[in-house]
């Protein structure tokens, strides 16, 4: 166990997997000589050389497709998007090629690769550089969508993602890169598709992923001071969703709040609350509440930006409402 950052945990995962498997390579903008726009690939060029850590031109669609073709030919590409905002340029390759190739080719070709990079809201970078797109990607059969919320999960999930035989969308969080946590040394794998109970409680279930997991844990502390014991669940893998862990929790607490940083409409919260309704309806003592980002492009001004994002106070309030304590 070592205390390292979320950023270094990702680095460790990639280095270990590249040492283990010659087929794995890292490609993206500024990943090699610059050591990564967010320093996630720090030192990797020196360690693995320019054949396996490759700087690309600014050409997201092109190098996303390169990854797809290389994976079809038996390699294990890790393609970094500096941020997921730029991956919108590459969606044809992700949605129309990577996700569908196995089905469309009758099982003859698969696309075992990882698309990874920073997602969610950054700070004070305006509308085009602050958004959550996981619901777009999680909508697509053929993709797996993974979002770690802490350094240990970042390592264990990225190692599993690189070893997975399908296309994995791995969305990191820019604001979490500097977070420090205990991370197991060496071989540490977290299977995809398994949620994690981050805090045990009996009164209300808070479901939150990525950066919002931390917000939910902070809200749970505040709720505890107010006499409400919240259980916090981090799905970790958005698709396929480990709904059983959520349903077991709701069966115990009978109340749920789903939290996400992204927009409300057709969001991850909509999917999770629908599933709770479909399979856990009889366990519910109150309608499921959602806490989401406001449905506006992200503003720049500090006060407006703060208002656009979910807050710990929003989560506390929603939990109090579903518990009948508002």
């Amino acid at each position: 166990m070592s205390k390292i950052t979320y950023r270094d945990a990702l680095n460790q995962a990639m280095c270990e997997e590249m040492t283990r498997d010659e087929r794995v390579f890292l490609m993206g903008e500024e990943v090699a000589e610059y050591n990564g726009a967010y320093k996630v690939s720090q030192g990797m060029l020196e360690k693995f050389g320019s054949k396996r850590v490759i700087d690309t031109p600014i050409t997201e669609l092109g190098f996303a497709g390169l990854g797809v073709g290389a994976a079809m030919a038996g390699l294990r590409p890790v393609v970094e998007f500096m941020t997921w905002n730029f991956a919108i340029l590459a969606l044809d390759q992700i949605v129309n090629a990577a996700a569908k190739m196995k089905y469309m080719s009758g099982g003859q070709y698969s696309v075992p690769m990882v698309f990874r990079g920073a997602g969610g809201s950054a700070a004070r970078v305006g509308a085009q550089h602050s958004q959550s797109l996981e619901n777009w990607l999680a909508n697509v059969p053929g993709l797996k969508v993974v979002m770690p919320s802490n350094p240990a999960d970042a390592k264990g999930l990225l190692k599993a993602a690189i070893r997975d035989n399908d296309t994995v969308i791995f969305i990191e969080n820019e604001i979490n890169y500097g977070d420090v946590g205990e991370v197991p040394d060496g071989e540490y794998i977290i299977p995809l598709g398994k949620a994690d109970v981050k805090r045990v409680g009996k009164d209300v279930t808070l479901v939150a992923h990525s950066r919002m997991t931390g917000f939910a844990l902070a809200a749970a502390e505040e709720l505890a001071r107010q006499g409400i014991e919240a259980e916090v669940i981090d799905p970790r893998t958005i698709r396929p969703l480990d709904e059983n862990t959520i349903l077991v929790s709701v069966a115990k607490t009978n109340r749920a709040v789903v939290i996400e940083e992204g927009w409300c409409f057709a969001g991850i919260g909509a999917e999770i609350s629908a599933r709770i309704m479909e399979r856990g309806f009889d366990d519910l003592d109150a309608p499921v509440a959602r806490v989401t980002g406001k449905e506006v492009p992200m503003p720049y001004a500090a006060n407006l930006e703060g208002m656009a994002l979910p807050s710990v106070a929003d989560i506390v309030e929603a939990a109090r409402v579903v518990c009948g304590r508002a």
Partner: protein
Amino acid sequence: MSAKQKQAAGITHDGSFYDLEELNAMHDKMLFIRRFEEKAGQLYGLKKIGGFCHLCNGQEAVCVGMHHAAEKTDYILTSYRDHGHVLARGSDPTAVMAELLGRAGGIVKGKGGSMHMFDAERNFVGGNGIVGEQVPIGLGLGFSSWYKDDGRVTMTIMGDGGINQGAVYESFNMAALWKLPIVFVVENNQYAMGTSLDRASAETHLFKRGISFKIPGMQIDGMDVLEFDKKMSEAIAHARSGEGPILVEAITYRYRGHSMSDPATYRSRAEVDEWRSGRDPIARLQAQMIEAGLATEEEFKQRDKDIKKEVAAVAKAAEAQPEPDASELWTDVYSDPIEGAYPYPVKVG
């Protein structure tokens, strides 16, 4: 000429010798593709083939020449106008026809249809439905050969419509930057759906489109199978030598509409007739072979009859197949399905 003399004979084209066996194989393959496409057109008319169906009548020399020039281990991928290429690559015609008909024995199990032919055993990598989408994928196949140093070349085929996509130039840049072993092939059949080349392209000499990436270009007559094979072989040799990618523009023509729903009113009958009667690749090879004393008109007529019968038998065999089993709906979505992940949508009740 005796049979033995014919075997020793052949045609020398631009310094390359093609023996009778090769010539017969190239001829028969082109004619097979022509008759196969005609049959596909008929079955579409009978509503037995659904959806989109893009035929390649007129473009057979490009398909057959390219596959004659390429090695079996080389990768080939193309757009949705893919029947001719997959047949030229040597895939089972019954499986290709069964795919068009949506049958269990289809080349991709009935899951792809006309636009998504794949044959991994023959390194035929689609059958890609989004215009230009295959070009970055081909870049990745070429990259894998560079990474593994496996000596393979990737033939990435697009049309005169596809070459205007931005993804193509992103791919040109990286392929040239890293000297990847790729032959980019533009099948310039003069029309991107209903838009003629000069209405869509500022530079209509498409082989020049690689210049700003330092990619050499070649324009080849795609209506002459021997010429196409010869020049394509040179292009492949260039890519295999480690000198980087090359761009080939094949001048060709499609006799049919863009797809089955296209009556092709954007061009004159005279124009189509000019290409059909003046430059047809099958008639051209037949004339060359007759002139060289390698075959007679009667022999070609007989061979056409035989090939039509073969195609009819293929269609019959494919039509006799059942539709895919219902269980196939759920297979091939993931290689590693997650245990316990609930399949959606939920069954109510």
